[in-house]
């Protein structure tokens, strides 16, 4: 339309039962400031709800935040929910207080990138950019 390049759309969600949304909000704002359109779904969402929203919103990537320590269960559950709903191509990225040994396991489970509290913002942004581009290319 008015601009040539399609806008990147991402969804930021927080699965699990803990009520901390600091990480998710930080991520949403950082992405917004980098020019992304960010669908924010708030806290305490089930993996199925997040997957359904991502599909309806036709996002290019999905960012998850978890501070509860339940990431090993919840992040892969979102990847599975997406596959089950017929959208395995939507890349999932995750952030939170995640120990090194879990990172490899999460990547093996299909999470394309993991961020921890020390990760600089521009690394996060460019990871989302890459993920979005790979998706629209493939």
């Amino acid at each position: 339309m008015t601009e040539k390049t399609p806008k990147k759309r991402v969804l930021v969600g927080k699965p699990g039962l803990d009520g901390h949304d600091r990480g998710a909000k930080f991520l949403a704002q950082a992405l917004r400031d980098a020019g992304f359109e960010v669908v924010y779904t708030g806290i305490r969402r089930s993996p199925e709800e997040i997957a359904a929203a991502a599909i309806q919103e036709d996002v290019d990537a999905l960012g998850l935040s978890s501070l509860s320590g339940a990431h090993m269960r919840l992040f892969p559950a979102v990847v599975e929910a997406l596959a089950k709903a017929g959208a395995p191509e939507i890349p999932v990225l995750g952030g939170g207080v995640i120990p090194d040994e879990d990172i490899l396991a999460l990547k093996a489970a299909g999470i394309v990138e993991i961020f921890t509290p020390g990760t600089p913002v521009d690394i996060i942004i460019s990871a989302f950019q890459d993920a979005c581009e790979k998706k629209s290319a493939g």
Partner: protein
Amino acid sequence: MTIDKLLKGLKAWDPRAIGRAISLVENGDDSAEAILSSLDEDLISEATILGITGPPGAGKSTLTNGIISQLRQSRKRIGIIAIDPSSPISGGAILGDRIRMMQHATDQDVVMRSMATRGRLGGLCATAGAAVRIMASCGCSNIIIETVGVGQSEMDIIRLADITLLVLAPGLGDDIQAMKAGLLEVADILVVNKADCKGADILAMDLEAVTRKGSATPTPVSMTVATESKGIAELLDQIEKVDSEHRDSGERQKRRRGAHNQEVLDWCLEILRPRLLAEITKKGLPLLGDPRLKAKKILEEQ
């Protein structure tokens, strides 16, 4: 997704195809025409389009959530288009209306789309209109457009609606007298939400006084507590009443025509803008001479 698969998905009312189709139209993709010409015009003309506007924080999304729950009791398929402003600096946006409606996320018959204004001049009306048509064509008999009632482009969106609610709440600091002229006038129904909060009765009384002044048919005022689903059934009755009046009086057709013309105009401008810009750039116009005169000449050449 190939275009064939997408069109098949739309025929099957698949939420995934709906989401994709809206993106393609929103991004001005070449496939937009194939998508838009495949739609079911009968379903589009039958659908009821409800506009919900009002200041930020009034409870529009929460109210929408309550309306969805109520309408789902009669097994209707619902479409929601929630529009939020893009940041003028980064061009990005946070689209947070879903937060209040997540209880319906896995309901296959509630199709929701968040949309950013993308700083368009007008163009938003064209793309939001297309989203309405896609949803209606995919079986959504009720479509709700939520938009913040502040900017002009957001107000234009409301023209797409058959019926418009203006949602207000006490404590938002809105002085009714000072309220943007036009905002009260576009509304078919005024909703005082947060009726559980102090000041709601006074706000409702003030509104009634304002709409009575100089009008034989004052705008109805409804009170709701969206967070507790209170007053929603009554509000829907009121909406139905206004809707049937509009159908009988020809107002509905009149609005549809006005909206349609607006959408066509919007698309004309969307299509013309890049072409004209290319033409102007190509010409390498001299700095001397009046811009308006040059514009006229370029348009005549087209």
